């Protein structure tokens, strides 16, 4: 609860900060402060200290899983703001920075709802609170037609998926014996499902799949990620996606956990399609940004494996995945923002001019590709292991592994461009602090790659208490 309130309040503070000051740095620092507060507040929640004793009427449920997810998400946001916050100003002249930060905080509020919801109503509200600011952030580069287009596409398709989601919720409501939206009551004892329930479930699956860009509901992703200002693409592709994924898992674990066998097949189909389309399509991209968009689809495919096999490993893994994926992607995007040319050619020879940039970028990409010694490896490992643990869907595991090999292809294209091709990659001016932070993020990725238990130890205790 602390996090929800702080984020909402801080959103308002950010909104007004724009009124009192026009200096970007002040706004940014306020935002950083807010994020730190969020982290602290969330931590206090974790250890059982709540600022506000609000009776949530079981609308929300603050379990450790959700709160830990919040930690990961807030932490990622902090890194995101530190790395790329300054670039918000550069999107367009006279950019309303303060408002953008306010929207970011509102999104975080939505994310914390999604990670801790206990009724479909809250899920719905959370998702809408996430979506609406995102439509706007996507279109925030007003003069840029691409940005406009992305925004409109995102908006129209987002509304459409909201419709689907609501229909699903309505059907579930209809099927609920007690006439409730609470996921506790919806979920209990549902082994044999009525057609109504199943249809609702499928529609929810589709709608959530849309939000996490699972194929074939992913079509908005490349266009929106490509069209949106890169800073916000980074935000959307990582923090938001991770947050919704947590909600996704939570929904299917809590609500439909008992009837897993009924819907596993659908998740498997969607996962396979997502992996396939995401990876294969990424291969042929010319722009790194667009490649990353497809890669985020592919990564979503991997995260869906956790959904397929909801078990201890999967819950562990999805958090690790969220952290690993967010860190690496934020890092790559932070570097991408600094590039003058977003195509692969634009990266040619980066290693000669900016060895540090290239080296950290390589670590991020290696992590995304899931190479050992990076956090990405263990993330993928957990996903695969969780499915193997269920004993079914081994074909999917092998398929996922082959797709991972394909992913190496496009990630390494960037590495090749940076190291082995000649050219002079143009970047914008780089601050030492930026570089330092990149190194820290890279180090964090390596650290998680060697000792994932730093994050997982916490989770392990949680699994046994769950």
């Amino acid at each position, binding site marked *: 609860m602390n996090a929800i309130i702080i984020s909402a309040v801080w959103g308002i503070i950010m909104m007004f900060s724009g009124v009192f000051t026009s200096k970007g740095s002040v706004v940014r620092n306020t935002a950083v402060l807010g994020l730190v507060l969020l982290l602290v507040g969330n931590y206090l929640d974790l250890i059982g200290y709540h600022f506000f004793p609000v009776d949530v*009427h079981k609308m929300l449920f603050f379990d450790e899983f959700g709160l830990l997810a919040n930690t990961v998400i807030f932490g990622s946001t902090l890194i995101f703001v530190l790395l790329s916050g300054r670039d918000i100003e550069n999107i367009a002249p006279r950019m309303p920075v303060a408002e953008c930060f306010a929207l970011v905080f509102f999104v975080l509020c939505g994310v914390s709802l999604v990670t801790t919801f206990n009724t479909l109503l809250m899920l719905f509200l959370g998702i809408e609170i996430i979506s609406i600011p995102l439509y706007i952030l996507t279109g925030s580069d007003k003069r840029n037609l691409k940005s406009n287009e992305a925004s409109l596409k995102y908006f129209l398709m987002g509304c459409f998926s909201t419709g689907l989601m609501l229909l699903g919720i309505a059907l579930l409501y209809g099927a609920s014996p007690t006439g409730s939206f609470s996921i506790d009551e919806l979920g209990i004892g549902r082994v044999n499902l009525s057609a109504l329930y199943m249809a609702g479930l499928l529609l929810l699956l589709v709608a959530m799949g849309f939000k996490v860009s699972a194929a074939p509901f992913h079509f908005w992703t490349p266009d929106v990620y490509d069209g949106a200002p890169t800073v916000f693409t980074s935000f959307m592709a990582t923090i938001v996606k991770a947050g919704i994924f947590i909600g996704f898992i939570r929904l299917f674990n809590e609500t439909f956990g008992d009837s897993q066998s009924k819907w596993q097949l659908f998740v498997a189909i969607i996962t396979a399609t997502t992996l396939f389309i995401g990876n294969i399509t990424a291969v042929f991209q010319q722009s790194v940004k667009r490649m990353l968009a497809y890669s985020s689809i592919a990564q979503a495919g991997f995260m869906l494996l956790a959904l397929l096999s909801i078990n201890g490993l999967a819950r562990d893994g999805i958090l690790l995945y969220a952290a690993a994926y967010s860190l690496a992607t934020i890092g790559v995007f932070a570097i991408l923002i600094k590039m003058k040319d977003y195509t692969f050619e634009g990266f040619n020879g980066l290693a000669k001019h900016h060895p540090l940039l290239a080296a950290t970028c390589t670590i991020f990409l290696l992590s995304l590709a899931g190479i050992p010694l990076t956090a990405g490896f263990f993330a993928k490992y957990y996903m695969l292991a969780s499915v193997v643990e269920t004993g079914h869907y081994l074909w999917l595991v092998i398929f996922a592994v082959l797709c991972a090999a394909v992913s190496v292809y496009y990630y390494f294209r960037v590495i090749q461009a940076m190291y082995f091709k000649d050219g002079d990659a143009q970047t914008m001016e780089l601050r030492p602090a930026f570089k330092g932070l990149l190194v820290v993020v890279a180090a964090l990725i390596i650290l998680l790659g060697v000792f994932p238990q730093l994050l997982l130890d916490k989770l392990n205790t949680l699994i046994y208490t769950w």
Partner: protein
Amino acid sequence: MALVGAILVVISKNPVHSVLWLIVVFMAISGHYILLNAQFLAIVNLIVYAGAIMVLFLFVFMLMNLNADTEPQKNKWLKIAGVVAGGSLLLVFVAALKNADMKNQLAVMNKGEIGLIHNLGMALFQDYVVPFEISSVLFLSAMVGVVVIGKKD
């Protein structure tokens, strides 16, 4: 009436006509609400949807001075595909749900108190106070968003 209106919304060439037909649909739905004894929702539906929102739409149309001619025809095949897809979606839904064990369930007409403003209000401000508050965040963000987008630069 609702269905006919809905179809007309979709096929009207002139956007303004579409809006008008949509209002008809909303009215029909409100009628159902009243039949179902959900007076509050019926009223809200009329006021918010048919009134405010649709007027907003109309304003936008006027603002943009759109009429039938400005919308070029979509690819015919795509249109057919769209209709077919929509139709088959309906078929599939119906097929999926027709076996639902709902045959003997009734939606009670003209009975029950829950649709009344009083009852709804009590529920809203007691059990549902958190989401209610949260929806304010939603509005705030929408507001900020519109400001960000709408502001001339």
